[in-house]
């Protein structure tokens, strides 16, 4: 049999926020973006005196699945999961379903199983926003480069897809290189790109970390339009300073808060929307306003 014979199904009951135990599994904590999600969750939960158990998946699907199993083992009331990978998390979502624990995912979805709600910004849409901004800023057919995130990550795929779709026929993407969402790699890769393509006018980076690396790499070519993604603290500061032209700001902290709020609603018998959109906002440097 596939189901664990020791498994007991629990009935859903109403609970006050102060009696709830929330299990949180984040994909990683080595990126400020996810730290902000964590902060949002903690802040919202603290206000109501809710117990939070939070694990760091360290970007490993296997570690995350073990973490979620452990949380199920701890009989948390709800699981807030920010999946490392949407498909790999499916079995754990199913396990949670079997154990009668509602699941809320943040930032990335789960491909299978029943999810109470997905709290996320629309990455594809964000990619489009970035492309539109670039076309406006640079005009038609400008040569640009793209820094890609970790291969296979949904953020990489969706942001890339949204950007490329909109850029098609309007921008000339001369090269795409991965820098794994990492600032140091963003720096080195951008330097090399600038060497190979000294004539690029813009650079789209699929997150702010890499964009900030690019900022350092391209300091001598200040006219290159760098667009990041995330709206991290460092990213927004760079936009303010005019080092980056823009960033597609997500509201990770907001996401965390929204997820906790959805939990409270659920345990008070309120209806929870299956898709909670976290707002995206294009933060733009003064000179492009």
């Amino acid at each position: 049999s596939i189901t664990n014979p020791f498994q007991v199904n629990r009935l859903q009951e109403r609970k006050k926020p102060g009696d709830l135990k929330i299990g949180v599994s984040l994909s990683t904590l080595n990126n400020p973006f996810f730290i902000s999600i964590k902060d949002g969750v903690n802040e919202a939960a603290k206000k109501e005196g809710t117990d939070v158990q939070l694990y760091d998946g360290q970007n490993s699907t296997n570690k995350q699945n073990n973490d979620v199993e452990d949380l199920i083992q701890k009989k948390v009331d709800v699981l807030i999961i920010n999946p490392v990978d949407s498909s790999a998390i499916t079995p754990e979502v199913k396990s949670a379903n079997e154990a009668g624990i509602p699941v809320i995912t943040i930032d990335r979805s789960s491909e299978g199983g029943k999810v109470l709600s997905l709290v996320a910004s629309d990455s594809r849409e964000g990619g489009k926003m970035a492309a539109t901004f670039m076309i406006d800023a640079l005009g038609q057919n400008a040569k640009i480069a793209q820094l890609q995130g970790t291969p296979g990550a949904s953020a990489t795929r969706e942001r890339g897809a949204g950007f490329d779709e909109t850029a098609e026929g309007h921008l000339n993407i001369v090269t795409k290189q991965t820098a794994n969402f990492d600032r140091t790699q963003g720096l080195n890769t951008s330097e090399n790109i600038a060497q190979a393509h000294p004539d690029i006018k813009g650079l789209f980076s699929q997150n702010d970390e890499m964009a900030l690396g690019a900022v350092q790499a391209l300091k001598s070519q200040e006219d290159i339009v760098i667009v990041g993604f995330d709206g991290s603290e460092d990213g927004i500061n760079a936009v303010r300073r005019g080092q980056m032209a823009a960033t597609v700001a997500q509201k990770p902290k907001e996401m965390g808060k929204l997820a906790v709020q959805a939990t409270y609603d659920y345990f008070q018998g309120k209806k929870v929307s299956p898709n909670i959109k976290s707002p995206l906002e294009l933060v733009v440097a003064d000179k492009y306003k």
Partner: protein
Amino acid sequence: MTRAKVEQKSSESVNQKKFFSQLAGLGPVLALVVLVIITTMMNSSFLDVNNLLNLLRQVSINGLIAFGMTFVILTGGIDLSVGAMLALTSALTAMMITSGVPTLLAMLIGILIGGVLGGINGLIITKGGAAPFIASLATMTIFRGATYVFTDGNPITGKVMNDSFAFQFIGRGYFFGIPVPVIIMIVAFIILYILLHKMTFGRKTYALGGNEKAAFVSGIKVKMTKTWIYVISGIMSSAAGMVLISRLSSAQPDAGTGFEMDAIAAVVLGGTSLAGGRGRIFGTFIGALIIGTLNNGMNLIGISSFYQQIVKGIVIIIAVLLDRRKSA
């Protein structure tokens, strides 16, 4: 009289030696027991049957890889490519399954491919004369790159995988109440235990690690034996891959990143010397359990993930220092 005395004395000291060496062999077991006691004191639900089965299942993947790694390390070698072999074979297997190859056949082929990848490592090391560390570091990069090329960086999922009973069973099923991955791990353990401790292959493995030149002069086919050992490591890594894709219902191109370190840690915590020639596969099992207990236990206790890393590192150091005998 003198003679008798000498004999008595010597047999005494032999017994003592045996006793101490057995005690030393128990080092890792003691460490595990202490860890279990501490964890239980801090969260009694640790000892729930459910949680223990859960823990064993979590251990199974690292366990499988670490069993293979034990052979490699016993020869004084190392295999850094295990995680990448896992990823490549899982991706290829998942691609076969989604394109219609029957699950079990696909998995069998996947495991064979694992053996071939291991064989490549073995040949680079034995025929090429490259140091295992650098050879497997290079193939790690190559296998990982190949995985990305084959998958184009995307995870491989498919309805078949979610629907195939056989596929789901490997990673998520139960057999008389015991999770199937745990059973796979135990079966693998028994087979490899016999291979290592009861068959000539095992003696050759130890001899190789103890003194390669002496083993060669004693008629051991050093290159062939070593190559097979890397094949075993490849097979075990891909077997772990099969369990993993079934558990995840998908193959991730970046699966297995860093698994080599956990496997090596399990082997060393289990008392096997990185210099080769000394150690036991039972120790590796215990070593894997120690790491699993640490991960699971700290989660149950609720230690923050930043501190978890610090605790894990400190426990490894303490365990290794307690078991000082090994060196290199």
